[in-house]
């Protein structure tokens, strides 16, 4: 664990904080959990950077998929799960396509998001997405602009999804209820008064 230096000054404390990696910072179970959920041998990452080099998020943000692989390998659970970058993956799977170790970094990210959710670590927009899927079947429901565009293209105004077949909504809600996602989303947002 990082040593507190006690400068009696919060700003200095932060600036000069102990950044050593101590073996006690590592939770080996984290890697095991990630491997189990992602079903990929995350420990086999050799840090080549092909994933970040392929990632459309990387050049636009501080998100480095490779670093999440590294944190998984070292069991840096708190660091990985509390990093807001965890939520910047677009799930395009480019990294998974190219990883020379035949790993699925995308699935590692998904696994970490899963684990983060257990600690209620999840960005608010994701929770709102859950609520939207629960009520409409869509993360991004159709809107008037889209409808007009679709009609212009000669398509029906609504796509052949729950928008056209609302009778499937109860099934979707059943799945979400099974995982208590809506319940948790409502609770977290309520606790924050949203």
């Amino acid at each position: 664990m990082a040593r507190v230096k006690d400068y009696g000054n919060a700003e200095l404390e932060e600036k000069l904080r102990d950044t050593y990696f101590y073996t006690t910072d590592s939770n080996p179970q984290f890697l095991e959990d990630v491997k189990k959920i992602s079903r990929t041998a995350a420990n086999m990452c050799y840090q080549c950077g092909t994933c970040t080099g392929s990632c459309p998020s990387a050049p636009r943000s501080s998100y480095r998929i490779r670093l999440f692989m590294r944190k998984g390998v070292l069991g840096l659970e708190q660091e990985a799960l509390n990093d807001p970058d965890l939520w910047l993956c677009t799930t395009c799977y480019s990294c998974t396509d190219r990883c020379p170790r035949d790993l699925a970094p995308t699935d590692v990210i998904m696994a970490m998001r899963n684990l983060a959710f257990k600690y209620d670590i999840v960005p608010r927009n994701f929770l709102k997405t859950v609520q939207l899927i629960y009520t409409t079947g869509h993360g991004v429901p159709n809107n008037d602009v889209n409808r007009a565009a679709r009609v212009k293209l000669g398509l029906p105004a609504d796509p052949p999804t729950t928008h056209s077949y609302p009778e499937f909504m109860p099934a979707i809600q059943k799945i979400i209820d099974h995982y208590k996602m809506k319940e948790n989303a409502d609770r977290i947002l309520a606790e924050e008064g949203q």
Partner: protein
Amino acid sequence: MTETKEESRIGVFICHCGTNIAGSLSIQEVMDYAKTLDGVVVADEYQYMCSTPGQSKIIDAIKEHNLNGIVVAACSPRLHEPTFRTATQEGGLNKFRFEMANIRDQNSWVHMHDWEGATEKAKDQVLIAVAKARMLEDLQPKSVPVEHSALVLGGGVGGMQAALDLASAGIKTYLIEKAPTVGGRMSQLDKTFPTLDCSQCILTPKMVDVGRHPNIELRTYTEVENVEGYIGNFTITLRKKARGVLDPTEALERGIIGGGCNGCGDCAEVCPVIKPNPFEFGMAPRKAIYIYHPQVMPLQYTVDFDACVKCGLCVEACGEEKRAIDLDMVDTFEKVRVGTCILAIGYDFIPIEQKTEWGYKRFDNVITGLEFERLICASGPTGGKLIRPSDGQIPKKVGFVLCAGSRDNTGGVAKAYCSRFCCMYSLKHAHQIMEKIPGAVPYLFYMDIRSFGKMYEEFYYRIQNEGAKFIRGRVANILEDPTTKNLIVHTEDTLLGRPVAMEMDMVVLAAAIQPKPEAERIRQMFGVSKSQDGWLLEAHPKLNPCGTTTAGIYLAGVCQGPKDIPDTVAQAEGAASAASIPIHTGEVQLEPYFAQCMDEICAGCGMCVPQCPYGALALIDKEGRTVMEVTEAKCKGCGTCGGFCPGGAIKMQHFTSPQICAQIDAFLLKGGEY
């Protein structure tokens, strides 16, 4: 067939192997148990049975107790069977009166945490070994004479070195090369790391030597058609491909005095057919009658009959005196007899265009390392000027993609192994562009720089000091700017932790290597195994890296696994030394494990004959009856025929049915009546 069975007097010796065995099971209990077994007159143990005092125990016990069978319970027969056989022999017994129980690899190492279970299993193993020892017979190894000649397949630097060593050791050596010239890959290289000698300059003397060494029979443009026989006595059929051109000796054989190809090239001058030269990867033309390059050995032209239109212009140009060209030539066959063979068939490249992310064959300015060698080489298609294929401009920023398809577990064309010389040649390439092109900067995109050889790390230091840039990240993909044909290389600089998009004038892929496509056919002909990655398999990765599991066949160079020139030459010299031993000994001893036909039982049905994978069986007439006969030197003792014979007429020496049945009975009845 009744024999008076001698009384069994068996000695059992149990090895501790330090704590390898003694740490996992009770030696004392196994020894006490052994003493109770039928026929066992003495049981003993020792810390290291393979040591001199350990072996003395066996020798002394044979004499003291008048033993006629020895059992050692220790490690694997692969390791120490020869040791204990020798001790058995020194004690005065036939060395085949020895049986080994592998209580280490097959017991203590796998049951490390089960003391009781392992002890019980060791008792069973000793019981079974004693059951066999009681029935062992004296056997005499067979020795066969060895042909005083050798064959080397492949005329790259590895094959040439092996052939030169064999020939210089006084052995007649056939050097077989399928291309029209020897030299292999090394003759395509410009310079060689880490000393930067000119590749052709250091190779040509060897090429010349193999051409004129009195003990070397050089056969270029020749392939192996068939292999028969066994160590000491291989008969190999060669196919001499129709070359369309006679060398002076062949001309003389046809009565053309002073004729044959002298390499003047008058023929190629007049030949109207133009084809890409594969030696230059199509970057330079050649005619239908051609040589690869000026230093070929032998200096003799070859007609590419797939391209030749038989216009006859070359025949005319060649003239009445030399009369070297024969456009109706056909393939001919030759059989050679040799004692041992060395395979040195080299390597190929993966089809790197199938790793589409790097754009090879899609983008003009993406080339491979070997194409780079030709472009930077003074005798290459551009006279040594490195130019961009798209516009002939001189590149200033050149990217090198290391591990292009190597160390990659995605399957398809990718290879999981390290190709072992691409780090070093990429460093060499970096040096070459900085030397030749003022202001040029090489960028090496790498994961690790593997510069482990003698003076290699120092070479890395030198190139970095000369100004090469190293970016630690494997290249994710390359895009092309369609107007400039420049290339945008994407990766992450993992040391900075930043994604990278760098514009390069040219990119060189250090493409992974792989076995030759024909390696599969060759290996089957010569009875050699392959490792899981497809390279030819050595007999032992550490202790027998030049041999194979087929006696008399050896390996040299990259065909056994990726290696650079120093390692290739070293292995070639090792293989030549190993291959010369049986030849110089003049005879080889074969284990007497061959099948034997019991004539009085054999019905002469001949059904076993086609079963034998080694062609060792034949029907013969013997005293008016048809019976089967085994060519003992060909028999590998596999037991296929012995298990098959419907009449039970085939006896597998040292693995006879009674011996094996006794072992099974011993195990099932736990020492009860059998």
